[in-house]
């Protein structure tokens, strides 16, 4: 049982860590951008501190020691003993990355680059010892003298010192009440300590605990409960719990640290505190710690008076402590953070998925009812039928609204993916020896969680491509081209209708069309006579197996890159576009649906079955004129459409549907993205509808050529066609179509 508890806490800890690190990265980025406002520094410090606290509870030593020194440096900045120069900011950013690596290491057992860790740790220690990194003379503003002497004690006794004042920092939204005043006052903290059944068995001794509690200003102690009669007495179980009252100047977090070691073997409850506000502030700001100490404590965070208070303090603290800061952004930022947790609810994704699915079912059922009703009405146009029709219509509107609301629950800002990207760019900048800066915008654009999950991989590829191929090879090249030393990559997101548009734009050299062309000819992707427009040449880089990098680098491998991106995006029902200006830069634009749970589809009939084509790929529907058909020697048929030839694919053959019946003259032109436009022969076109995606893999397996399934109004399953993969089946499998005849 204990193991289970531990496990849960650990999972919770990692979850929190990822969140905290997200915040940390964001704030560090802001710092690096020169926003040296106090709340940013505090927030970053708190994040590091919280991770450390959590790590301590689980004994992740590497992480603890690194977080500790990192925290020390952050504290120096926080207390104005060090001014963050560009160099320091760089180190901080890298430290943030390292924290992530360490947490991943602790979570998944992935190896940590020890050398890098040691180097970084040394750099941080260097900073902590009060020496700013060489060159850049700190242009100290109003700050207190950054004398090494002032910094020393913080290093020597880091833990203790912060203990006193990180309290203030943690009191979220409250930038800085001065440490001194708070340090003097003592307050009363009551802790109820209830040992678990196997407290003794695991070698603990309450007496020892109480003795050492004395050093934490334990003033009174009360044993609660009764030792049972001799017959019922079980000497191996501690029947009592203890209520300890501390009269201490130390912070709650320090006491928590003290009790942490018992957290797994006893129930520790922090009871009413003379300064309630402190407790709740602490708890809210440091979820992993409070969680690891006791499952009970979060209940206290709900204390209703917690919310209004901090805003007031925030402003006070602001005014007193830092007159030089512009109060507004920090205060509002703090308030927002503070208000956040109490108004949001953490729900496991599967629960929401179930809701989304159910709503999907209801939409299908509703469509079924509507269809049936139409049939009934057609047969008998009575008043009742009319009224029923109105009701069904109203229900359909409400359902749609319900669906939108449910989808909105799953909508998340793309920030969760975007915020990982600066690290990618920094890592690559190191590897490639290029200087680059990533600018993010539109991080708050909301997209369905299903899309967000899928976004990280293509985005990483695109950034790699921009770093490796987009930006000039060397800084000298950039300067020669009259650009700034540091390459700029912009990553942005925005809504456009029912879709989200994500762009990656660099200010590099643009696509080298001559080289692309040469390479394409070399690989026989195009013939020498092909006369391509510049845009067509640019699009070649999406072709599988295409890479113009003169030598294969570790960054962008052997042409595994843009075609993978394209495949992925297309499989998500999106599209890619590219715009390049030689010498100026390249701009990739990907368009994605806002959700993967619902999509627009075109219902078609092939043979005796209905299929769905993703509407995003449908270009047009046309009648086949027998004059427009051209036959190739290899048996393939081409369809002439306004002067251009398209491959004509008979879906009945591809989908093993019976080919009996009269010749059909309906074709749908589909953009496959990877191999251009093709025309598909279909028996009938039924129309456009919203469909709820279902997976075939859940109970069966992946089926080549089919991206999923949906349920039609009549309860039948319709398959969603994956045209590019259908084509490759058709292309590679001459054997396949022969087999079917």
């Amino acid at each position, binding site marked *: 049982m204990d193991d289970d508890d531990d496990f849960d806490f650990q999972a919770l800890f990692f979850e929190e860590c990822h969140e905290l690190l997200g915040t940390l990265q964001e704030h560090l980025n802001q710092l690096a951008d020169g926003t040296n406002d106090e709340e940013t520094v505090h927030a970053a410090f708190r994040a590091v501190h919280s991770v450390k606290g959590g790590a301590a509870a689980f004994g992740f030593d590497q992480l603890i020691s690194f977080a500790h020194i990192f925290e020390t440096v952050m504290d120096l900045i926080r207390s104005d003993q060090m001014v963050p120069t560009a160099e320091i900011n760089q180190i901080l950013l890298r430290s943030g990355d390292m924290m992530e690596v360490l947490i991943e290491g602790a979570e998944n057992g992935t190896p940590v680059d020890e050398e890098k860790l040691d180097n970084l740790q040394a750099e941080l220690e260097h900073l902590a010892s009060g020496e700013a990194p060489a060159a850049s003379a700190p242009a100290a503003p109003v700050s207190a003298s950054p004398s090494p002497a002032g910094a020393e004690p913080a290093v020597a006794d880091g833990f203790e010192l912060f203990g006193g004042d990180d309290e203030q920092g943690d009191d979220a939204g409250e930038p800085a009440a001065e440490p001194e005043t708070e340090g003097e006052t003592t307050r009363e903290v009551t802790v109820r300590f209830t040992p678990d059944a196997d407290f003794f068995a695991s070698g603990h001794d309450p007496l020892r605990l109480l003795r050492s509690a004395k050093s934490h200003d334990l003033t009174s102690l009360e044993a609660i409960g009764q030792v049972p009669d001799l017959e019922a007495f079980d000497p191996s179980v501690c029947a009592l719990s203890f209520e300890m009252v501390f009269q201490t100047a130390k912070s709650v977090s320090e006491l928590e640290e003290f009790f942490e070691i018992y957290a797994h073997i006893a129930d520790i409850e922090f009871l009413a505190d003379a300064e309630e506000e402190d407790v709740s502030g602490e708890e809210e700001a440091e979820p992993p710690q409070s969680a690891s100490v006791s499952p009970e404590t979060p209940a206290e965070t709900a204390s209703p008076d917690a919310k209004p208070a901090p805003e007031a303090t925030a402003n006070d603290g602001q005014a007193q402590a830092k007159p030089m800061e512009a109060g507004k952004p920090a205060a509002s930022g703090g308030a927002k953070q503070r208000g956040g947790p109490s108004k949001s609810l953490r729900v496991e994704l599967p629960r929401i998925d179930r809701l989304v699915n159910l709503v999907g*079912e209801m939409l299908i059922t509703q469509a079924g009812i509507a269809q049936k009703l139409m049939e009934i009405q057609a047969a008998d146009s009575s008043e009742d039928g009319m009224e029923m029709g109105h009701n069904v219509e109203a229900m359909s509107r409400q359902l749609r609204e319900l669906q939108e609301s449910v989808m909105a629950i799953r909508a998340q800002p793309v920030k969760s993916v975007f915020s990982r990207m600066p690290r990618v760019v920094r890592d690559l900048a190191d590897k490639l020896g290029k200087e680059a800066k990533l600018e993010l915008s539109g991080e708050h654009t909301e997209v369905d969680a299903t899309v967000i999950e899928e976004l990280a991989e293509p985005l990483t590829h695109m950034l790699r491509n921009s770093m490796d191929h987009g930006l000039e090879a060397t800084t000298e090249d950039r300067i020669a081209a009259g650009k700034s030393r540091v390459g700029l990559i912009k990553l942005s997101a925005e809504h456009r209708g029912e879709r989200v548009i994500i762009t990656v734009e660099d200010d590099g050299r643009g696509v080298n069309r001559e080289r692309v062309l040469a390479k394409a000819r070399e690989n026989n992707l195009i013939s020498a006579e092909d006369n391509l427009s510049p845009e067509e040449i640019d699009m070649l880089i999406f072709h599988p197996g295409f890479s113009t990098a003169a030598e294969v680098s570790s960054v962008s491998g052997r042409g595994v890159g843009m075609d993978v991106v394209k495949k992925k995006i297309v499989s998500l029902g999106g599209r890619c576009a590219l715009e390049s200006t030689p010498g100026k830069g390249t701009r990739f634009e990907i368009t994605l649906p806002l959700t993967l749970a619902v999509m627009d589809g075109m219902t078609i009939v092939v043979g005796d079955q209905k299929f769905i084509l993703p509407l995003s790929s449908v270009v047009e529907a046309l009648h086949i004129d027998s004059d427009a058909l051209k036959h190739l020697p290899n048996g393939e048929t081409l369809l002439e459409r306004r002067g251009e030839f398209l491959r004509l694919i008979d879906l009945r053959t591809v*989908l093993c549907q019976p080919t009996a019946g009269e010749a059909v003259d309906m074709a749908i032109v589909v953009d496959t993205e990877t191999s251009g436009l093709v025309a598909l022969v279909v028996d009938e076109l039924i129309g456009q509808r919203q469909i709820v995606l279902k997976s075939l893999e859940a*109970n069966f*397996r992946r*089926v080549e050529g089919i991206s999923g399934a949906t349920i039609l109004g009549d309860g*039948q*399953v319709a398959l969603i066609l994956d045209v590019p993969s259908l084509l490759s*089946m058709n292309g590679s499998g001459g054997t396949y179509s022969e087999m079917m005849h």
Partner: protein
Amino acid sequence: MTDFPDVLENPDRAATSSGTIKQYVTFLVDDRSYGVDINLVREIKQWSPTTTLPNQPHFTRGVLNLRGTIVPVHDLRARFGGALTEATEVHVVVIVWIGSKTVGILVDAVSDIISVPTDDIRPVPSGQSLGDMSSLSGLVNTENGMVALLDLNTLFPVTDDEL
């Protein structure tokens, strides 16, 4: 067939009755009896037309909509080398759990629920020219003849071999 729902709703009763007695749902294909562990049977439904998949295995009848989830349906007769069943409304699809997946098995009719002491389960003779018998986990003699117990995992493996 009438007392099915009753038993199906209380599969625990069957499981807890004893470690030595197991219950099997038996069904018919061409007058031959097959049995599946009752704990693996999720429900039994009447045949309804399925949606065929391109390139599906020869014994697969396609997929059907089981209250919102897509479930593949396999033809037991075809799986054992027979022709595809000419399915009509009197044919039955037994929905079973195979690992974490839900799968439908098309059979001619469901016949009974039998309780079998595990000691009475006879091994399948091997090494004879009986064809592939690895998909049977045992044989049981009942008053109404022999029942072949199916090993669903071998019969319809559901491991995803990612392409």
